[in-house]
C-alpha cells in the first residue's frame, strides 16, 4: 500500500467513525441536526476528494462553510439553504451522468 493509499484509508476510516458516532445522536437531537451531521460527514468526504481538483465540490464545500452555522442560529434559513444545496447536487449528478453516457 502506498503512502497515498494509507492516507486515503485513514481519512475514510475517520469519516466512518464520524458517521457511526453520529448515529446515536439521531435519537436524541432534532431531525435538522441529523441532517446537519450527514452534511458534515459529506463535507469531510469532499475534503478527502479535494486532491481530485473538482471545481463543483470545491464550491460546494465553500457553500457549506458559509451556511453551516445556520443550523444553530436560523433553522428555517438552514432548511432553505439545504434545499438549494441538494438541488445543486442533483443537477450536477444529472450533468455528470449524461456526460458519462449512461
Amino acid at each position, binding site marked *: 500500500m502506498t503512502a497515498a493509499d494509507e492516507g486515503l484509508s485513514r481519512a475514510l476510516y*475517520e469519516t466512518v*467513525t*464520524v458517521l457511526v*458516532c*453520529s448515529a*446515536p*445522536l439521531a435519537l436524541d*437531537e432534532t431531525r435538522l*441536526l441529523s441532517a446537519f*451531521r450527514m452534511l*458534515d460527514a459529506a463535507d469531510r468526504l469532499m475534503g478527502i476528494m479535494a486532491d481530485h481538483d473538482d471545481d463543483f465540490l470545491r464550491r460546494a464545500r465553500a457553500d457549506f462553510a458559509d451556511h453551516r*452555522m445556520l443550523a*444553530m*442560529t*436560523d433553522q428555517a434559513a438552514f432548511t432553505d439553504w439545504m434545499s438549494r444545496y441538494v438541488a445543486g447536487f442533483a443537477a450536477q449528478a444529472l450533468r455528470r451522468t449524461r456526460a458519462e453516457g449512461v
Partner: protein
Amino acid sequence: MIDAKPLDVADGMRRRRMHRIFEDRPVPAEVLGRMAWAAARAQQARSGVRHVVVVDDPVLLATARQVLPGFLNNAPAMLALCTDLDQAGATGGPRMVEHVSRLDSGAACAHLALMAQTLDLGVCTVTSWADEAVRALFGLPAHIRPDVTVAVGYVTKETASPAVRGFTSGLHHNAFGAAFEDGAR
C-alpha cells in the same frame, strides 16, 4: 506567571460567544490549570461531585473530532466537565443526579467563558455526542457521567466568530407572561 487581563464582568458577559476557530498554538499547562480552577470554583451543590478532565494530548483531540460529532473546531485543548453519579446520588439523591449536577456543570461553563477572556482564550461548549464515546475517549468509569466538553484555545479578533444575533430569552414580571420593564437594557 500567567499574564491575565482584568475583565469587567458585564463586558465579559456581553462579549461572551462560542468560538470554533482557534490559533494554531498550544495552551500552556499552567493556563489550562487556571481554566480548570475557574470551572472548579463554580457552584457545586455537594463536594466531590464535579470532576474536570483537562485534555491537551493531540491524539485525543484529533480523535475527539471523529467521535464527538459536535466537536467541530480546531481547539488544541479541552476540558471535560463530569459528574460523579455515586457521590451525587449519595449526597443529594436522584434530583442531584439528574437536575442539580447538570446545572452546576452549566455554571462551570459560564465561569470558563468569562475566565477565558482574561487569558486571551476562547471556548466552545459541546454536548452533541454519545456519552459512551466520551467515556471511551477519556477512560471514564461507569459512575462518572460526562456533562459537557469545552473546547479551549487562543483566539484573536481575526479568528473570532461573529456574534450570533436573534437569540432571545423570555423576561417576565411577577407572573409568566407579564413583561418586565426595568429600562436597563
